[in-house]
């Protein structure tokens, strides 16, 4: 009986491991493929001869991408929006979460209800667009950072963290000593909250880095475009801008056009995703922590 069970357990282990390996292959293959394709001759990529490892290694794609001034503009703008946007997010989220976590806040239930309601119902696309337009934010950097200045979900996560990690006695002791809420927040709570600040900076930061829709509807000036909008033109609409073409020195044929399109396609995917994919494994525990705190019910 016991040995039979052990045998079935062992069989289970083997099957389970195979299943996980399959998962890993399915998830990793497309990522490895774009990495390989980005440094392969597009001829081998398009003919299907390059299946896993790079073939006919060339760095022309990356060269063209890095020579493109628009990609650099996009990069610069994206970094700028990400940094500014994340700072604003933190400046709104952290104090709000602290206040909501405090027992001293009169009317907390009403305030919470009003804020949580926005998670399930809002004005929708058009009224929000009209508001941003009426505020005169169209075609300004503010259109990229103010409409997404806070997320209620993240505020709740931060609030839960404060409730769990800031000892109740600490706040009381500080108050008896005559410390104000502002001092408690800045001098006691914030220094104790580095993990949640990291989690929030990452959540908000990645969202800013990857977002394109706000830029699509609020920006017209190409000098303000974030990287994702240029990517959209190259990858989705498959428009190679004149600027990327001209560098070849010969705007001669559709063929050359197609070749360039193929060669920069994968390089551009790598260039835009790599910063996030590179730092993520080192910060994985913070991301996971954020999800986990979010799943706790008060």
């Amino acid at each position: 009986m016991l040995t039979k069970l052990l045998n079935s357990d062992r069989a289970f282990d083997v099957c389970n491991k195979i299943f996980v390996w399959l998962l890993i292959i399915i998830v990793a293959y497309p990522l490895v493929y774009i990495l390989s394709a980005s440094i392969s001759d597009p001829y081998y990529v398009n003919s299907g001869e390059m299946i896993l490892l790079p073939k006919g290694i060339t760095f022309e794609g990356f060269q063209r991408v890095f020579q493109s001034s628009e990609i650099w503009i996009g990069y610069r703008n994206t970094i700028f929006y990400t940094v500014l946007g994340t700072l604003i997010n933190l400046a709104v989220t952290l104090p709000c979460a602290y206040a909501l976590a405090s027992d001293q806040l009169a009317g907390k239930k009403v305030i919470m209800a009003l804020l949580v309601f926005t998670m399930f119902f809002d004005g929708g696309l058009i009224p929000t667009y009209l508001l941003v337009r009426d505020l005169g934010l169209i075609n300004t950097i503010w259109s990229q950072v103010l409409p997404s200045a806070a997320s209620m979900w993240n505020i709740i996560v931060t609030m839960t963290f404060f409730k769990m990690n800031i000892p109740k006695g600490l706040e009381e002791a500080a108050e008896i000593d005559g410390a104000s809420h502002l001092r408690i927040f800045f001098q006691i709570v914030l220094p104790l909250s580095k993990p949640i600040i990291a989690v929030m900076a990452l959540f908000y930061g990645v969202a800013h880095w990857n977002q394109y829709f706000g830029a699509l509807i609020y920006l017209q000036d190409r000098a303000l475009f974030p990287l994702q909008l240029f990517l959209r033109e190259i990858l989705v609409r498959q428009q190679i801008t004149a600027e990327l073409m001209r560098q070849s020195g010969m705007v001669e044929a559709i063929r050359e056009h197609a070749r360039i399109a193929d060669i920069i396609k994968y390089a551009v995917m790598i260039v835009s995703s790599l910063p996030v994919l590179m730092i993520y494994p080192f910060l994985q525990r913070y991301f996971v922590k954020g999800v986990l705190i979010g799943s706790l019910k008060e």
Partner: protein
Amino acid sequence: MLDASAVSAPPRKKRRINWRKVKINWQLYLLLAPALAYFAIFKYYPMYGLQIAFKYFRAVDGIWGSRWIGFEHFERFFNSYYFWDLIKNTLFINLYALALFPISIIVALSLNELRDGKFKKIAQTITYAPHFISTVVLVGMIIAFLDPATGIINSLLGRIGIGPISFMTRPDLFKSVYVWSNEWQNLGWGAIIYLAALAGVDPQLHESAKVDGASRLQRIWHVNIPSIFPTIVIMLILRAGSMMSVGFEKILLMQNPLNLSSSQVISTYVYDSGLLHGQYDYSTAIGLFNSVINLVMLVICNRLARRTGASLW
């Protein structure tokens, strides 16, 4: 602190705001102010703007001053030839995605059974990674991989004598491409929450099940799944609440004139008719219709879920 509790109002008047407490703690409201301003301006003011759904909106008249026309926009939408197509597409895509809901649970159950901690960690790191890829790059990958002439999928299919299939231009394949690429991106990330719930399962339950002679599979079925059931229910409710809206940004990128009959959903139609064609009032009405359905679904699902003992409120 002592002060506040000393003056706390008698239970009857509990609902009244304690102004003394507010005054003592004014700095808390100062800390709250940026967030309140943000939500008032960017979340509540647009709700005020929702009234143009019932109006003939002209920019010169403003939101308040535009002429009231009642439900005309809604009637126009319900009677339009595309109404049922939009509803059908929106519902189908979401029900399809819902059908794949168990995948993340299975992934979590499977990762949880791995004894080798290092391998488990590597598996997690790899499966979470696609979550961090932007929508634009993901759709770019889909388009590149599925290209009938140059895509790797078609060239692999060609080797076994299938194809080439023009995935992106075939309306009948659009929903599958959308839903399965979503699954690829989020199957690992979606498992985190269940993994956490599994970590909280009482080991004694497993011990006693072992004594009773339960196999691994039986223990998963009779111990693990019931233990994470409340989490599953809550995730389902949240899913239902966004039933009609998820995936809008990705669908928008995946659309092309040839697959539109299958890829136009309510939210993308709002974008199209509102922002691209300037029909602000009409599109707001469609958006409102969509939001209200979402809210109603959320409330209904939460009601149903209460019977199982797990609910949002």
